[in-house]
């Protein structure tokens, strides 16, 4: 059969450009907003996800990483004494004040960890070494925040909460969801940086012994520490993500922008496909008069929608890749996974075919006798 759908679609080049621009714009908007959502979401729980710990113990009613209230370190010894625990460390995440060499203050999130442990340590190091945290006043920061913190080189000296601190290493890509970059140091030094009493900790991170059922260990620790909350890592990650993305409304705002992209896309495509249908309404009438079944005529409309969706998606995705690449250099964290890309393709298809519904209704109600009028 002659390619009527394709010919009709490509016949009016200006309208085609408008259609494809609308779809591509919509795709870019959805990629950027969904990517921001995923990027924000992953940055809220990045420390937890990369901790290599099996369990996180926090004060009771803790809902997210930065909320944890200090509790007595005696619990740490109770944890160590629990059968099935291979390793446990005390861990701090708490806000503090960073003072640049020039005197400007920035809020930071201090992460107090054990440089000798395989859990809770800084990751993605691109300069320096975790062991160098054992040096006096040592800290490790992420190079994304080098400008913000005015610390660009190993050996740079700054002040945190009135204490001297020396940069001994840089990580890459450990983004903070808040405006406060993470600063890694030893647990003991973190107590000073965050004004937490020496006998307190924020968290206890636990690694289960090989062969130990983590669920059972979690239950046992919860039984022994009734005044604490015991999470497995996935749970605590989800809880932290949920808090930042939904309780604060930040995620909803980003998701709404993504939905806006979808709505804009549907509106643009619906308008242009409807206009194209109306331009060719007499031809559709002719087809119906000739005896073409509704399924064929509707197939023409749907083919136009699918072709427009596919080309618009390809253009939109190409632009999106540039945006994502540019954003990563500019400090924004836009994640675009292949799953998102595939999902968006089907969403674009759905968007365009649903946009064609208005035209489909018009065609279904079209009287073929139109061909005899004028």
């Amino acid at each position, binding site marked *: *059969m*002659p390619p*009527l759908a394709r010919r009709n679609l490509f*016949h009016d080049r200006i309208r085609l450009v408008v259609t494809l621009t609308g779809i591509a714009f919509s795709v870019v908007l959805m990629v950027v907003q969904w990517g921001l959502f995923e990027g924000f979401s992953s940055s809220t729980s990045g420390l937890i996800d990369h901790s290599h710990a099996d369990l996180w113990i926090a004060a009771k009613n803790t809902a997210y990483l930065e909320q944890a209230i200090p509790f007595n370190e005696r619990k740490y010894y109770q944890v160590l004494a629990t059968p099935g625990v291979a390793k446990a460390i005390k861990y701090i995440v708490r806000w503090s004040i960073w003072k640049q060499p020039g005197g400007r203050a920035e809020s930071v999130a201090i992460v107090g960890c054990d440089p000798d442990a395989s859990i809770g340590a800084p990751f993605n190091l691109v300069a320096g070494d975790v062991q160098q945290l054992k040096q006096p006043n040592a800290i490790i920061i992420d190079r994304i925040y080098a400008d913000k913190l005015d610390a660009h080189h190993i050996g740079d000296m700054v002040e945190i909460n009135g204490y001297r601190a020396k940069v001994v290493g840089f990580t890459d890509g450990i983004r903070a969801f808040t405006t406060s970059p993470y600063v890694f140091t030893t647990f003991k030094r973190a107590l000073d940086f965050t004004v937490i009493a020496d006998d307190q900790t924020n968290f206890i991170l636990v690694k289960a012994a090989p062969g130990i059922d983590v669920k059972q260990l979690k239950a046992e620790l919860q039984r022994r520490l009734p005044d604490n909350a015991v999470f497995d890592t996935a749970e605590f990650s989800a809880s932290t993500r949920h808090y930042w993305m939904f309780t604060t409304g930040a995620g909803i705002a980003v998701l709404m922008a993504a939905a806006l992209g979808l709505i804009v896309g549907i509106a643009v495509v619906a308008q242009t496909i409807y206009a194209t249908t109306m331009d060719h309404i*007499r*031809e559709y009438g002719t087809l119906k008069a*000739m*005896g073409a079944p509704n399924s064929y005529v509707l197939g023409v409309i749907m083919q136009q929608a699918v072709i427009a969706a596919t080309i618009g998606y390809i253009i939109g995705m190409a632009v999106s890749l540039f945006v994502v690449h540019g954003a990563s250099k500019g400090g924004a964290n836009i994640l675009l996974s292949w799953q998102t890309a595939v999902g968006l393709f089907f969403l674009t298809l759905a968007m365009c075919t649903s946009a064609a519904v208005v035209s489909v209704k018009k065609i279904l109600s079209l009287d073929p006798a139109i061909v005899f009028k004028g």
Partner: protein
Amino acid sequence: MSDAITIRGVTKNYDEGSTKTLALDGVDLTVNRGEVTLLMGPSGSGKTTLLSIMGCILRPTSGQVLLGGKDVTSLREADLPAVRLRHIGFVFQGFNLFPTLSAGENVELSLGLKGVKGSEAKDEALRLLTLVGLAEKYNAFPADISGGQKQRVAIARAVAGSPEVILADEPTAALDSHTGKTIVEMMAKLAHHEDRAVVIVTHDNRLIDYADRIVRLEDGRIANAA
């Protein structure tokens, strides 16, 4: 000569709000294969309504339409497109070609709807365009050919799949007299040489010479049939 279309006591009312218009009022008519039948009459006399009912595009308010002896008025609305596809070819005043398809593709599309596809459809489309003298215009688009050529493509499209009935609505109205004559000669050949029933709605008295029967309509009734 056999009956192609038989109309028995057909009436057609158009309801427009509280106004009822009687477009056809008890029309009886038989159209034979191998004949050119002209439907003539003043504007609003019901010619196009009758043509639409013959073509199974409109349903009569009452009465019966037999196509090849089969009662099509009793068919469901959804079954009528298949009847049109199989038995009827249309030629329109405004040609109604698909502007984004070439002349050959316009004919191929009609064949494709009837199940003829691929190279078979291309060969058949070329044969039909050759019959109307437009083989060399196979790849030409409607915008690039004259009105007469467009109507010849429309005729090739109408006869694609060999329907026994060709219904034409003012096929020469948009053409100059010479071209109109060529078109009507072509349609007469379809009736006389290929045993099709050709029904033409027209105001053009010059077509009378080619008609085997002339049916004059006035106020929805047949005034006389000659």
